[in-house]
């Protein structure tokens, strides 16, 4: 696997189109560039294609047309197996909810990407994954939960475990898909503080997606998906009903 160029932006999209069914584009993005270390807030109503866009960035979905470059590498030219390795090595992902594998302990959930990917393990700098997981858990205030079954955790705790997993091995890009939507205002603020602190520490680029515009002020850049996405404009300003019906 080639080492991604350090000069290239973290994310670069060019004329990307995506349709779940032929002829009905969900996304049509002429251009989007995210610089390294940037904390990007991407907002849009639910059903406007935010998760689909993150799927493209993660290389789980393949664009119908156009180029998706992550760290200077074109995901479209990779074979699917290579893309899976690339994702494990360079990307951390936090879901809206249900972030954890129910049958693994907190510790095993956090170290899962490092167990699946040798390259991600290599990023730990020779320190044992379990040890790093403990350090990270300490900073995210979940150190006492490491041996608990994940089913015993509150939603707030689960989200912090998910952040620990996304950040272990300090991947270049951390992608969050509405991770705060299940948290109340107080817990949400504490969660964001911890997330920002850890991403800054790890020099990770943060791509944070939410429909909640009140969070925008904390980020270095805010982009409305609707303004990027020509497909939404074409089908009537990203009508959420229309899009979700298509999913």
């Amino acid at each position, binding site marked *: 696997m080639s080492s991604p160029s350090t000069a290239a932006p973290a994310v670069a999209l060019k004329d990307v189109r995506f349709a779940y069914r032929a002829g009905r584009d969900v996304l049509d993005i002429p251009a989007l560039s995210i610089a390294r270390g940037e904390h990007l807030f991407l907002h849009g109503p639910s059903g406007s294609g935010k998760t689909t866009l993150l*799927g493209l960035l993660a290389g789980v979905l393949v664009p119908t047309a156009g180029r998706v470059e992550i760290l200077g590498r074109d995901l479209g030219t990779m074979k699917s197996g290579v893309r899976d390795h690339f994702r494990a090595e360079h990307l951390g*992902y936090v879901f809206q909810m*249900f972030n954890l594998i129910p049958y693994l302990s907190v510790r095993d959930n956090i170290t899962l990407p490092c167990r699946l*990917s040798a390259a991600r393990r290599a990023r730990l700098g020779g320190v044992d994954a379990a040890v790093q997981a403990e350090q990270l858990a300490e900073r995210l205030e979940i150190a006492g939960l490491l041996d608990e079954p994940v089913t015993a955790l509150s939603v707030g705790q689960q989200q912090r475990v998910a952040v620990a*997993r996304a950040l272990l091995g300090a991947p270049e890009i951390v992608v969050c898909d509405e991770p705060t939507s299940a948290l109340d205002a107080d817990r949400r603020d504490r969660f964001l503080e911890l997330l920002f602190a850890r991403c800054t520490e790890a020099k990770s680029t943060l791509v944070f997606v939410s429909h909640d515009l009140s969070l925008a002020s904390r980020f270095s850049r805010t982009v409305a998906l609707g303004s990027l996405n020509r497909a939404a404009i074409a089908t009537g300003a990203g009508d959420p009903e229309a899009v979700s019906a298509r999913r």
Partner: protein
Amino acid sequence: MMTMLSLAWASLRNRRLISTLTIASVALSVALLVGIEHVRVGVRESFAGTIKGTDLIVGARGGTSQVLLSTVFGMSTPSGTVSWATYQKWAQHPAVKWTIPYALGDAHKGHRVIGTTADFFTRYRFRDDSVRFASGVAPTDEHAIAIGSDVAERLGYSVGDSIVLSHGVAAISFAEHEAHPFIVSGVIARTFTPIDRSLYVTLEGLEAMHEEEEGAGGLPMGPPEQAHAPGEAPITSFLVGTKNRFETLTLQREMNEDRSEPLTAVIPGVALGQLWQTIGSAEVGLRVVALFTVLVGLIGMCVALYASLESRRREMAILRAVGAGPRTIVSLLVLESGLLALLGAVTGVAVVYAGLALARGAVESRFGLALTLHALGPAEWGYLALVVSAGTLVGVLPAWRAYRSSLADGLSPKL
């Protein structure tokens, strides 16, 4: 690989109930398959053990099975008679160590009566045993009769009881040998062979009975028997033990080719083998049923895995997000079904051995079936390999489905 295995194991443990049930259903079918194999071997050994230590069974010229069936199993009718002179000729043959004569033709309430000599009680071998008495002794005079354990049990006879024989083997006979009753001298201990269903008298007793009957002007018994000197009544067959087993084949050929009186000499092991070939086809049916049970167990496993997929789509999405490719997901599910099949097979074999260890004593005393705790044979290993590999393959269908939906779902399954 270790990671995949521990993931699969953790996932199965998470669905403990359904995993246990699946393992149980596979285990049951494997237990059935292996159990049938053990019982089959046991039955075959018991069958082959009906007669041991005898080198040749000789009767009047007839079919191999007929000689074997009529002499050893008390079934079918003898192919004819062997004259006393011919019997004596072969009994004194230099290669022959001992003989046991069999004179058939009479019965008692549907049970065969066999006229023989004391050699039967000392020479006859079945499995690794010889004839022993539960009570009483072997018949020595012409009014003494020994009875098998089934006869004693069914008809409620014990030593000292008086018995009247009848001519022919039908259960109801109107030709009773009333003039010559017999007294039970001994009850033979259970052998789990046709001996249990037979009665044994001396050749002299049999002859005396028939003579008294004729002398008393009894009913004509079928075709008039050839006249013979006293003590030289014809017999129906005889068993031969050779001095040197290597001479068996030569002796057999000599007997079969002798022109003075046409005989058929059969080697018990060979004849038993041929007979087993014909009646053994029933075991094929058993095996087919067992294989179908295994098939049902495997389909059940496939259904269980398939049904669990719907609730695991979120899990698949998480796995994909942290870098698991479709290949990882497929191998996870295939590994799960392989583990289930393996655990099922191991449990099934354990169940069979535990069951045999517990039940063999009861089975042996009840049915005379000596079930041995032998190690798994090549056929059984073959079955196990088949079950485990089929079980692993069964996981491919759900895995394929999981792979497809994980591609289509991306990172947000439609819950």
